[in-house]
């Protein structure tokens, strides 16, 4: 069976043991990471964040302000990295691209009728092309959850292939909206479909539905990435998004990546956090480590 662009054979997909996953996940939260290793972890987290604004009320001004924050997280503390990317709607890509010129921060755009994905394929492809033509480096697409839950896997697969083709050289992240997939087995199945269809990243959620990213879901997806890597030799990235707002939780995710996929995935090329409020919490922790004093959000920029 060819591994390129054909639906995977689900008979080979392992069944997910939910209790086992939860127990494994609980153990990731017991690692003691303190002082210098914590500092390094915190900086790594900052550098893995996709700073996100995906609201109906977004304006160019808001996006510009967020882009400035992306490149200047907290200038009072020297030696901080920038975030990995900003994540915006297609209409804001041009604004973000201009605002980030010369900073090295990537622009990611959601597309394919985000967040519901309820639209025709033509519209989704046009949406994607519009974002890419405006300069998006990365595309975050949503799968058609309705079709997936109906069992119409071919449709989902073909759609990802089509969007991947429309992306050109932009990297494609595929959002499953795991909060709507209801079981971990479905999450595993969706991961396999997306990776075999050519996804560069798989991503948990849009951030519009609760529950968003959880550790069990992320672990299932990481294990899917690992199995796919062993089978094909191709690395696929992972992006949990939504609901990760504290440094402590983010460090648990890093532990999970390291212990599931290994150090090769611990860079923003292969792992991202989709978050808007996480950055400030990490910055507060870093400021606490450097000044020794607990911090207040009053002293950190909101966007």
């Amino acid at each position, binding site marked *: 069976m060819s591994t390129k662009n054909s639906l995977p054979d689900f008979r080979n997909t392992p069944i997910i043991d939910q209790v086992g996953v939860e127990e494994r996940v609980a153990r990731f939260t017991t690692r003691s990471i303190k002082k210098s290793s914590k500092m390094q972890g915190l900086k790594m987290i900052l550098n893995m964040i996709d700073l996100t604004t995906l609201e109906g009320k977004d304006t160019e001004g808001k996006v510009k302000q967020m882009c400035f924050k992306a490149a200047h997280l907290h200038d009072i503390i020297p030696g901080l990295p920038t975030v990995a990317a900003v994540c915006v709607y297609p209409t804001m890509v041009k604004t973000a691209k201009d605002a980030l010129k010369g900073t090295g921060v990537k622009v990611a755009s959601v597309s394919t009728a985000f967040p519901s994905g309820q639209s025709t394929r033509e519209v989704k492809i046009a949406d994607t092309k519009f974002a890419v033509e405006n300069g998006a480096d990365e595309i975050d697409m949503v799968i058609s959850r309705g079709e997936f839950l109906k069992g119409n896997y071919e449709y989902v697969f073909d759609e990802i292939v089509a969007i991947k083709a429309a992306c050109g050289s932009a990297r494609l992240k595929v959002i499953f909206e795991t909060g709507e997939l209801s079981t971990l087995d479905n999450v595993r199945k969706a991961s396999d479909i997306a990776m075999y269809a050519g996804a560069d990243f798989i991503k948990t959620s849009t951030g519009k539905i609760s529950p968003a990213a959880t550790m069990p879901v992320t672990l299932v997806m990481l294990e899917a990435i690992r199995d796919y890597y062993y089978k094909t030799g191709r690395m696929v990235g992972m992006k949990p998004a939504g609901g990760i707002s504290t440094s402590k939780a983010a460090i648990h995710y890093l532990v999970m990546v390291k212990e599931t996929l290994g150090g090769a995935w611990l860079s923003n090329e292969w792992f991202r956090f989709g978050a808007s409020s996480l950055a400030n919490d990490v910055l507060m922790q870093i400021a606490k480590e450097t000044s020794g*004093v607990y911090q207040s*959000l009053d002293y950190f920029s909101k966007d």
Partner: protein
Amino acid sequence: MATRLEIQKTYKIYIGGQFPRTESGRFYPLKNKKGDIMANICQSSRKDFRNAVVAARGAFGGWSARAGFNRSQILYRIAEMLEGRKEQFISELILQGLTDKAANDEVSLSVDRLVYYAGWCDKYQAVFSSVNPVASSHFNFSVPEPTGVVAIIAPEESSLLGLVTVIAPVIAGGNSCIVLASESKPLCAVTFAEVLNSSDLPGGVVNILTGSSEELHSHFSSHMDVNALSYYRKNKNEIKTIKENASLNVKRIFIYDKLVLASDKAQSPYLIFDNQEIKTTWHPIENIGSAKAGY
């Protein structure tokens, strides 16, 4: 028949409407005059304080936005609940060395003090507000607004009255607070938290820790998300450190080392006013009085 074993109460701390043990797992034994252990008390750590500040900050928005009248109702409710559990507090105070009469008086005075502040909740604004005469065409007025998150190091010598005296004016004014209870007389603090928890007071508005001021005062005073600190003890060294640390984020510092808890001076609208900020608004108006026909 076998003799019944008495069920001892576990004294825990109060953070965000929950009763956790200290995250540090530490405790100190509380002894009575004879030297027998009465209870093990949580020795709170700086991380408990940090968690309490997060809870207090979270609760501040909702609490400060409540109408004064509603805060008044809730303070009165606390008084009602305290009255209902009078016997328990009296027996705890006696355990901690008070005579029957002194214990009875202390509980009664605590209830009365809560009622006193319940009355002030929707009145201090009018007392401390003003309409200011200005020389331009503006309507200029000043109103008090709550300071924010207030850290309190409660008096050492009193178990219940001290606590009520320091908490009531702060929450009457719409602030949220973290209180370090008396180290040597902590029993009522934990029981009082149970009263608060059953009085419609939103979780996080009052957080009560037990432990040592020597260990915690520097964290109370250096935390950037604490807006004011009230200190009710007499330790000169601690006062000095607190004042120095407070300069980090220009906290409001109030040292009440001479307050006599049982006196009338220990209850006053000015104690509410201490944790208020004055906001002055310049509102442009047409100068109606001197208006002439415009045509």
